[in-house]
């Protein structure tokens, strides 16, 4: 690893903060996407997408 000089702590915290926030954002988006896909599949399996007049 390169020497980041006397202000290394600011550089490390800046990159660490961005990395954690982006990892959390990606994780949240993927979990939300899978949760809704699963719910949609469950509703379609239950026949919610079929018309009430043509069961």
């Amino acid at each position, binding site marked *: *690893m*390169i*020497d*980041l*000089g*006397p*202000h*290394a702590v*600011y*550089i490390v*915290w*800046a*990159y660490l*903060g*961005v990395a954690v*926030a*982006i990892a959390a*954002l*990606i994780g949240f*988006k*993927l979990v*939300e*996407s899978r949760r*809704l*896909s699963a*719910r*949609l599949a469950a*509703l*379609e399996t*239950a026949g*919610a*997408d079929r018309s*009430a007049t043509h069961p």
Partner: protein
Amino acid sequence: MNVENTSKQSWWTRIAHPGQFVAWSRRLLVPLWIATAALFVLGLWLAFFASPEDYQMGDTVRIMYVHVPTAWLSQFVYGVMSVSAIGTLVWRHPMADVSMKAAAPLGATFTALALYTGALWGRPTWGTFWEWDGRMTSTLVLLLIYFGIVALWRAFDDQLRAARIVAVFTLVGAVNIPIIKFSVDWWATLHQPASVFRLDGPTMPGSILTPLFVMVFAFTALFLTLHLIGMHTEVRRRRVMSLERRLAQRGAA
């Protein structure tokens, strides 16, 4: 709609119909993830191993490689939302409000990161984490506008009605974007004036400008990927709400 008609659908229908949009744009996700990852690997390598330290700021210049891209996205995402708001108000485009809604939390995150990295860069460079100057204050106002937009979306059950109100609010808030851009010219500020896009060319050497551009492209690719995933999720959420409503009505009948 039969199969023959489906194959002849116009590009407008393919963009406007939520189901069609998800079907064709899903294929873009893998290339977008690969491009994002490759750009980040290259950008981080350039930022830490190929870029020299600045003659005045020393190694803290490396904070610029995460600060400038997040600051750029804080405004670019708002631009995407403003164009989508016009799509909602003028054409009632079904995917325009989906795009607006999916972009808002991403814009808020990138704006918060721009303020966070700016504070950490400001302390060793200017001697302070925060100063109420034009650029920082107008960026904080942008973050509050993003929070307001996210809250407005959650305040309405009827998402079509919410879309029109949010679209008007978004376009009114767009006045803040040129204020952020020109704040360094209009008021006394700790920020330097524009140093990349200038009539007389960038004031940075290529060894610093190259990693900066690669990181800007990496963050922009990340936004495009997450925005697309967010739009797919929002389409599914509306379908789920519609099916749950139908099930409830059937149960009540």
